[in-house]
Structure formats: C-alpha cells, structure tokens
C-alpha cells in the first residue's frame, strides 16, 4: 500500500475509493496500523475500534463493489471525540465518572456519519467533559501535540486535533463551546469548523453548555470539513436547538475565486484588545496581503472589545455547565480531575442575574455583529494569539486566554480555523474566518482559498513524516 495515504485528504481518498483504486478495508487497516505505531507518543485515542471498524470497512467495500456508493464519506475512517454517544461502546468524557457509561444509542451525528458510510475508527481523547484541561490525573493521559509532543494540542477536542494532524485518521468530530474545535485545530495545524449554531444536532453528545455547544468537523483541509458538513447538517427534532435552513451546498465555493469578496478585519481584537506574538501578527498580515492580491476587498471593522465576548461566554458556559454537573459534583467530586472539578465548580458562584445579563448582552452583540456584517461578507482575525503552549501548563485559570474563539460562540455564526503559516520554530499558525449565520459555505470557501494561497497543506508534523519514511524503508 502507498504509505502516503496517511497524508491524503478525505476528498482525495474518496476519489480513489469511488473509482476502486483504493479499498476501504485497506485504508482502515492502514489507519489502524498507524494508530498502533504512533499513538503511543500521542495518546490521541482512548479506544481503537479495530474489529468493528474493519467490519464496517468490509461492508463499505461490498456496497461500493455492488455499485451502491453512498457519497464522499463512504469507506472513510472517522474518529469521535469521546463525548459522542456510541451504541454499545463506552462514551467516557475522558472521566473516571463516566468510565463505565455505555450508551444505548448513537448520537444523531454518529448515526448520520454511519448512514453516509463512514467507518468509526475509535474514540478520541478530550479534556474531561470537554472542559477540564490537559490533565494527568484522569484514567487516560492527555493527548499530545504531534508537531512537538512536549506541547499541548489545546482542547477540548485535543485527541481529534492530534490524530488528524498526525495522519492517524483523515477526519474527526469535535465540539466547541468556547473554542474547543478551533483551538486544537489552530495548535495542531488543521482545519476545524464550528458551524452555525443548530446546524449539527447535539443529541447524544455529552452536554456542557446548551446555548453555546456546537458539534463540528476537524480535518486536514477546509474542503474536507465541507464534505463532512454535507452529511452532518440535518434538522433533528430531538435537539431543541436544531434548525432547518433548507439545503446548503457546503462545497459550493471550494476551489473558487475570492475576487470581490468583502473581508472585514477585526483589527482591534489582535492589535489592541489582546497582545499577540509577533509571528502570529506577521502571518496574519501576510495572509491579508495575499488575499488582497487575489482580489478580495479588505476593510477594517469594529465589534465590541474581545474582553466583552470573553466575559459573556465565560459566565454563560460556567452557569450552564454547573447546572449539568451539580449533582455529580456534590455526590462524587473525587471522580473528577482537578481541572475539571475546579472549572465546573466556578459556575456554582455565578449569580442568576449575572447569567441573565450575559444572555441579554449576547442579544446586543448579535445585533451589533449583524449590522457590521451588512457591509462585509466575512470577518477575519487570528485564531490564537500564540503558537502551541507547553503541555500541562493550564492556560484557562487566570491570565489572558490564548484564543479569540469565544466571539463566535456568542454570535452563533460559523467560524473556521485554518492554518495560514508556520512560526520560525515550525509550529502552525491559524487564521479564523467568521461568517453570517448559515453562510458556512462561504467561510469554507475562504478557508480553502487561504490554504491554497498560503500553501500550508503540504507540511506535516516531523514525527508523522518520519513514520512514513520508516514504513517505506521497511517495505523497500
């Protein structure tokens, strides 16, 4: 087998599978071998579903051979953050508290992926209940960053970011309450989409904060995120937040020109509100210039200060997550890791009036952003103010937050993190692209353009490249 398959996008793998140049069984076996070879250094998998995945791949192969190709995800291995319920398979939330939790049903999004023919490769590491942090006091170790295993992949979809970047799996599901898809996408150098609120059902995903929770795809490219969105974005009456905007072609803009696209640059976020590393600023400016050279129209725009989004998101998520975990925290606080326990307990001391004020202020910010976005098509700013931090250095208690993600959790519109460059140390840098609600396809279009124009998709973590070279050497 061509070991470089590990570096193929879902789009490329799908073309090979559809034309029967690649067998889903062969691909799944390659991914399993890759996990076994590399995950000892990454800890991105909590559970590898080897037998089940091979059975699903065999079924996909038989269907495709019979002329029943279901679409671009047919026969493609996918990893699931371990907060996605899987029928008959433990869904732990990376916590001792849910170590033996075996759901009866798949989450709606898992069911949709299965219906699209995807192969469920395994359950991936997460911060505990999508809030804890890169903790060493949980039943499983924290995932590590494949660009440097001493570094944090960020979270909470830490395993998803690490596994996709290292080529263990071509696509994964994450969740994003305050940036948990876009943070690890940024620090691991992949694409991660927080879709418009309500586009993907949260039914069957362990909840954290019901008015801020989003499910979404994490892949090597924006194009692959679009392919996953096509299978995932379906109205679900079992999720009260689910919406039905009608058919959306998420891939409509992939490969297209960005000439005339009006890009609002939220300069105050990264120039005055929060201090950024110089290399992040340089990559942002280089990207903006390149987009302008391609015909995009840049405008500087103003929103509320980033700190206001941060404050609001923090109050809402703490209050809602505490409400979800209160009984568990009272009855079994010792079953949480320290980070998770402390972060969840923080919500116990938020006043009800402050939570309600946060929701009121949210309505104001949504209206303000809608007014700004009448004159621009998308908003851009860096995803993170810095490259990946050291593993185990908790960045979420006190001090400035590393990410600009919370703005779009508050606004609810789509927000995509894409790799737009690398630091002098070889670590990925990421641009965030936000859009109007339900204009996810436009955000993906610009993300795809950024990846092409900045030529970032040809570079993989050294450990992943060395593993491929070693396999090729052994095969020769």
């Amino acid at each position: 087998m061509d070991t470089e398959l590990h570096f193929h996008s879902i789009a490329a793998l799908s073309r090979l599978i559809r034309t029967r140049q690649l067998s889903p069984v062969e691909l799944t076996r390659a991914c399993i071998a890759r996990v076994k070879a590399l995950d000892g250094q990454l800890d991105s998998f909590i559970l590898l579903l080897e037998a089940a995945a091979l059975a699903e791949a065999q079924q996909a192969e038989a269907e495709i051979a019979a002329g029943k190709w279901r679409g671009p995800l047919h026969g493609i291995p996918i990893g699931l953050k371990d907060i996605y319920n899987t029928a008959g398979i433990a869904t732990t939330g990376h916590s001792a508290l849910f170590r033996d939790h075996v759901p009866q049903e798949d989450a709606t999004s898992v069911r949709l992926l299965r219906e699209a023919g995807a192969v469920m490769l395994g359950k991936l590491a997460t911060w505990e209940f999508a809030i804890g942090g890169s903790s060493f006091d949980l039943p499983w170790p924290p995932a590590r960053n494949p660009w440097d295993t001493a570094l944090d992949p960020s979270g909470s979809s830490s395993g998803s970011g690490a596994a996709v970047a290292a080529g263990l799996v071509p696509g994964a599901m994450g969740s994003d309450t305050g940036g948990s898809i876009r943070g690890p996408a940024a620090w691991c150098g992949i694409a991660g989409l927080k879709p418009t609120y309500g586009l993907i059902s949260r039914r069957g995903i362990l909840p954290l904060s019901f008015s801020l929770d989003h499910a979404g795809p994490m892949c090597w490219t924006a194009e692959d995120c679009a392919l996953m969105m096509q299978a995932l974005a379906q109205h679900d009456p079992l999720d009260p937040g689910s919406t039905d905007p009608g058919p959306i072609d998420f891939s409509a803009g992939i490969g297209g020109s960005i000439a005339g696209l009006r890009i609002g640059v939220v300069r105050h976020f990264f120039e005055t509100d929060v201090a950024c590393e110089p290399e992040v600023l340089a990559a942002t400016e280089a990207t903006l210039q390149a987009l302008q050279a391609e015909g995009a129209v840049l405008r500087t725009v103003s929103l509320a200060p980033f700190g206001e989004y941060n404050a609001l998101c923090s109050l809402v998520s703490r209050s809602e997550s505490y409400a979800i975990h209160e009984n568990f925290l009272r009855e079994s606080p010792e079953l949480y890791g320290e980070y998770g326990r402390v972060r969840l307990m923080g919500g116990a001391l938020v006043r009800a009036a402050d939570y309600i004020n946060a929701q009121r202020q949210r309505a104001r910010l949504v209206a303000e952003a809608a007014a700004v976005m009448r004159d621009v098509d998308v908003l851009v700013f860096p995803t993170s103010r810095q490259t990946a931090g050291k593993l185990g250095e908790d960045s979420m208690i006190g001090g400035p937050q590393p990410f600009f993600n919370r703005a779009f959790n508050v606004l609810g519109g789509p927000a995509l993190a894409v790799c737009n460059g690398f630091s002098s140390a070889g670590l990925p840098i990421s641009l965030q692209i936000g859009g109007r609600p339900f204009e996810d396809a436009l955000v993906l279009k610009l993300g795809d353009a950024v990846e092409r124009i900045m030529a970032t998709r040809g570079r993989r973590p050294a450990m992943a490249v060395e593993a491929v070279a070693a396999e090729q050497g052994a095969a020769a």
Partner: protein
Amino acid sequence: MSVIPFAERLRARQLDRFPEADRADLERLVQAGDEAAARIRGSYSYLEEPSNVFRLVPAKKAPQP
C-alpha cells in the same frame, strides 16, 4: 453591591467540603467570574426583552374518533 467573602460563598453553596487543594484555583476562577459579571452588569431596556427565548410549538392533536 455587598462583597461576600469567598469562604462564606462556598459555605452558602455547600461547596466547603471540596478538596482544600482546589481552593486557590477556584478562588482565582471565581474572582475572574466576578470581574466578568461586573463588566456586563448595567442597564437593559425593557424594549430589548425578551432576550431569552421560551418557544412553544403548536401541539399535535390526535385525530377525532
């Protein structure tokens, strides 16, 4: 608004039996939360309500026998 000491707030929420080792981090987190709350506290017009949506959908009725 009166400032209630952190320890008293913990007692009021029956959180004072949580591990002593957590206290310092929790206090920092709570302080950050108080600052966040102060930042968005202010006047909100009645005209802006309702900001929190309680939404009902029409009931599905059983067909008449």
